[in-house]
């Protein structure tokens, strides 16, 4: 208890004395973790967008002739479910009545499009998703070549190959995102360590004196480490504030105004991101100072 009070007092005094360096260290933590937070949020938004796009990309629609009998339907459905690349649960039979209802719903603002239709022109169809969007082309080919009662299948529709290319680009984006996050974390640790090293270098004589008076390494280390942790904590608080305000003022607005892009943040993301930034700040501060001290304790 006595010691804790002493270390706290030492830390406070040292922070006040080296206020400029402390501010520098805090700024470094804030900037690096802030950017890290933004990158993670942006990354998450992108990957959600990709996932939405993929959901569409993986979709295959099979339009059937009105002459198809119930047995034929069953056989075709069994075939579709049996294709290994097809997500069996996604195979869905959409009757022509359902298709018309959907059509009416989608164009309810333009009733002239459907008001005067006597007979339902829409076909019965199967809708299915591939497990992996990359397999769409293959699945389409297989249905076209191997399906039973192929004469009953009037058309097969899937997302175009242009979207597949987009998917490849997104894949690259994802890899770049991982690299960016890792490099930022390393840069943050290095910068904090350098900043704290400067602070300690300015006080190497003091550290030497402390050792000569009989202080153990840990007795000397604790105030410095607490200082690093405190700087890391303050820095990460600022980073969180920055990340949150960017989310509220920019990202939320983007999602509202560009909803056709289906931008979204995963719901639990902030609950994970905020503690991660805090813990990251503490670790960066503590490691930065402990590492920087090592060299000056050899007296």
């Amino acid at each position, binding site marked *: 208890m*006595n*010691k804790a*009070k*002493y270390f706290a007092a030492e830390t406070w*005094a040292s922070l006040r*004395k080296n206020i400029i360096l402390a501010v520098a260290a805090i700024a470094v933590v804030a900037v690096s973790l802030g950017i890290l937070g933004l990158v993670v949020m942006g990354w998450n938004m992108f990957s959600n967008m990709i996932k939405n796009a993929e959901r569409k990309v993986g979709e295959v629609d099979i339009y059937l002739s009105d002459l198809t009998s119930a047995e034929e339907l069953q056989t075709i459905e069994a075939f579709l479910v049996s294709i290994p690349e097809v997500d069996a649960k996604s195979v869905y039979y959409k009757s022509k009545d359902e298709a018309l209802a959907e059509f009416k719903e989608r164009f309810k603002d333009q009733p002239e499009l459907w008001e005067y239709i006597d007979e339902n022109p829409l076909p019965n169809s199967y809708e299915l998703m591939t497990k992996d969007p990359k397999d769409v082309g293959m699945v389409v080919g297989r249905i076209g070549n191997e399906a039973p009662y192929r004469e009953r299948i009037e058309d097969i529709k899937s997302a175009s190959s242009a979207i597949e290319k987009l998917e490849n680009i997104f894949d690259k984006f994802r890899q770049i995102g991982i690299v960016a996050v890792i490099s930022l974390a390393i840069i943050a640790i290095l910068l904090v360590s350098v900043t704290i090293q400067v602070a300690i270098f300015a006080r190497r004589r*003091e550290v*030497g*004196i*402390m*050792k*000569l*008076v*009989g*202080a*153990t*390494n840990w*007795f000397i280390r604790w105030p410095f480490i607490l200082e690093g942790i405190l700087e890391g904590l303050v820095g990460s608080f600022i980073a969180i504030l920055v990340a949150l305000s960017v989310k509220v003022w920019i990202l939320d607005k983007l999602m509202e105004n560009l909803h056709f892009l289906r931008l979204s943040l995963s719901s639990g993301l902030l609950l994970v991101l905020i503690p991660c930034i805090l813990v990251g700040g503490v670790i960066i501060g503590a490691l930065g100072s402990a590492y920087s001290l090592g060299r000056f304790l050899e*007296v």
Partner: protein
Amino acid sequence: MYKGNVYALEDITLDIEKGEFAFLVGPSGSGKTTFIKLLIKEEEPTSGQIYIADANINQLRKWKVPYLRRKIGCVFQDFKLLPHKTVFQNVAYAMEVTGKSHRLIEQQVPEVLKLVGLGHKLDAFPDELSGGEQQRVAIARAFINRPPILLADEPTGNVDPSLGAGIVRLLEKINSTGTTVIVATHDKAIVDNFRKRVIALENGRIIRDQDRGVYGYE
């Protein structure tokens, strides 16, 4: 010990008994400071053994060095006061590292500072003090934990000659409580006045070791 074949100390064999008061004399560069640095393990000997209280300190584990240093009060030639701490805090630091209670520190530090004549400067910072005052803070810090051994490197080097005798008298007083005191100095007047054991060094070698001796150089 240093570059080339020049040794700061060579072929030193001597015993200093518990409770003794010894002057270590010699011109600058004769090895006095190195002698003291060896005792607190600020330097390591290239060869030879050093025993303190029958323990070979060459074999002392690294993590035990701080505990050795707490048993040896040292007044450094350049004082080595912590510049950002007040007089009180500087002396208190030596107690804090040993984990002494706040209450004990509050009580003993002013007492010892009064003993060295600085009872009125507790809150001053080192750069606000004269050389002699800083020297006395250094002595107070070296003595605050009542170490069995007290080393003083040129404790009168930075003070007015009239104060020098006062400082050595203080060290003598400390010696009378049973502390072994070793004073490195090239202050002839002091050594001649106090008539203690004199160990004379020249070019890193002992050239004379006599009880109740005088400085002896001209």
